[in-house]
């Protein structure tokens, strides 16, 4: 673990010394926390973050989560949520802190699974980094599956209703009361 951190530090220094612009980072250490080096092939230094640009794939908002049938997807997504520092912004309970609450049906950029995928992959203007060129698609879907398991999303079939501001009629995005 310490060695991995030293490598990370060394690469970082080298990147700075080389005058590399933008976000260059090795997340080798972060990946090494995951089981069995599953992501080894993708852990080389790659651009990441706000300035890395959008991911190439543009999905239909109604695309289903291809990881939905994998029983491990939620657990893997949870691990990624912590190891990729998502929890640092959105909270360990994903209920929001620096970043917004991800456990409800209120989504600024759309809350179907594919729209959530897109937000993770492309980043968003208020500080959400773009992960599309760093994480493999499967990881982003696993993250999406984890948020879905917390109640954070609405079904793809409700995409049109959400666009028309009618999500509340579907019993989603409805008001929340808090009596004190």
């Amino acid at each position, binding site marked *: *673990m*310490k060695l991995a*951190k*030293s490598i*990370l*530090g*060394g690469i*970082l*220094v080298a990147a*700075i010394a080389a005058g590399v612009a933008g*976000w260059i*980072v090795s*997340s080798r*250490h*972060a990946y090494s*926390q995951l089981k069995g080096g599953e992501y080894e092939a993708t852990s080389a230094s790659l651009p*990441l*973050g*706000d*300035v890395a640009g959008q991911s190439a794939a543009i999905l239909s908002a109604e695309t289903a989560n291809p990881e939905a049938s994998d029983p491990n997807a939620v657990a893997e997504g949870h691990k990624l949520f*912590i*190891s*990729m*520092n*998502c*929890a*640092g*912004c959105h909270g*360990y309970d994903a209920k929001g802190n*620096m*970043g917004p609450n991800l456990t409800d049906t209120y989504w600024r950029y759309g809350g179907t699974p594919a729209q959530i995928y897109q937000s993770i992959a492309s980043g*968003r*203007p*208020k*500080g*959400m*980094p773009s992960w599309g060129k760093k994480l493999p698609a499967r990881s982003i879907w696993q993250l999406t599956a984890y948020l879905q398991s917390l109640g954070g999303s609405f079904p793809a079939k409700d995409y049109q209703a959400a666009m028309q501001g009618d999500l509340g009629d579907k019993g989603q995005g409805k008001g929340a009361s808090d009596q*004190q």
Partner: protein
Amino acid sequence: MRTLFGAVGLAFAWASSAAAQTPTPAAHTSLSGASATFDGAGKPGEWTSQARDYANTRYSPLNQINAGNVATLKIAWSFSDGTQFGHEGAPLVVGDTMYLVTPYPNIAYALDLTKPSPSIKWSFQPNPSPTAIGKACCDAVLRGWAYADGKLIYNLLDAHTVAVDAQTGKEVWRTKMDDVDKGVTMTMSAFAADGKVFVGNSGGEMGVNGWLAALDIGTGKELWRAHAVGPDKDVLIGEGFNPFYPWMKGKDLGVTTWPADMWHTGAGASWGFISYDPDQKLVFYGTSNPGPRVPAQRPGDNLWTSAMFARDTATGQAKWAYQFTPHDEWDYDGINEAVLLDMPIDGKVRKTLVHFDRNTYAYTIDRTNGEVLVAKNFAYQNWSTGFDMKTGRPIVDPAQEPKPGVKLDRVCPPDIGQKDWEPPAFSPNTGLLYVGIFNICMGLTDHEASYIPGTPYDGMEMERSSVDGKDGNWGGFIAWDPAHGKKIWEIPEKFMVMSGAIATAGDLVFYGTTDGWFRAADAWTGKILWSQKLGSGIIGQPITYTGPDGRQYVAVAAGVGGAAMVQKSRAGFPPRGNTLYVFSLNGDAIQSPESPPRGASAPAAATPQ
């Protein structure tokens, strides 16, 4: 524990018999003998910097409002600035104009005090990048601004510093200080002294590399920049550096007290208030927690994080430094301010600074050399079993040291300390400091963190609670004798006190609570003489000033946010929304000569459609 009247039985007795009289401070003796120079303050009726003076006293010589009449204080006027993030700054009053700057998007307003207020002279929208919102750890706040050389100078959340012409509201210069996409934001108030403006960065939770910089007031050109981590050449440590304690002496300690290369992302951001000693030409400021917040990943003292620097204003070279919390394990930033006071200690008058640290020690330190003269707890803590005056190091309880994946049930204080950035006030009459505090603890689980630029380099999972259990208070407001390290009185508060405090020659102290109570208390006894509930929680800094009409006013912004939001799930915690409130005796103010518009009582437009 809650209320210690201690040695001031005399003052207490006086207060109970004299509540309705005009106070006569000369009749009472300062409890500490401490004094301040008040250099850098404007005219008596003005408030031209966040702390009012270089020493950071937040003391006003005005006494029109005093213990005898403060009960008649009422709202004279109010002003909504239209923003939602927590409002932490103080407005400034220069001449007949009040200047107010908002949290993100950092809009500046000039209000004409000669007219029925609020009357906007100009506003300025700097349009900082919205990316900054998601990079600010603890709300998109701003702790105020500086006035100097006819300009208002302030930090934008997206890591720029901007100067605005005070007459016209036009931008004079803007300097990019760092990269917001790497997680660097700027939330501190700029500080002007010695012909320069001093600014620092935020982002202690984002693995930034902390710094303080001096800029030319006229042009915004960077004159020097001193880092908190790294080799001596980056930290501006050279021949003239002479810390008091041997363990802070040596070459490149900002590198060698870290595991290899981890200093690059070791934080030490500076986001609190700065003070200035014109005799020594030194600025004093603190540095943030180390990064990552998980201590298991960074064995060593992690210099110069959670520390204070004294730096030469001309060159930035450090004269001395002192680390409050070596190898900080709980996010105890050392950024809280230094109040520069001279006071007798053990029979000898010392030039000191007083600093209430997040780690819950209140320090009185010799500001010429960094020697700790007094280090006493000002509130409850359980991470340290004592303080070694010989080495200048707190003694850590090993049972409270976090290990990744192992939950610690109750560490007090939590990450935000028993006092965060909220600044104290000093009264030369009582010789006491007045400060808002917390009464809280945390359950803590560390998770190993990876450095990914622009994301939190953090790893602390926490839940906070009152020291005193489920129904316990979360805050308080205390009077502190800095010469003897002793709490003189305390006002318990249900919610955290995160507002600034001010003290006045009327022997009053003012503060606000995070559930929205704005209070005036007797400076000698802590008796609450007046309270008003405002529209949101108060984390702003009050001021007092004399208007063009000769009346004394007191002003404070309500608008909860920032670290106070750790209380958001508690019953009684107020909603956000920023409004400046201005108070006067009986609510008297300059009145409009105009009557309401003709027909305003029954406008046609009000007819239901």
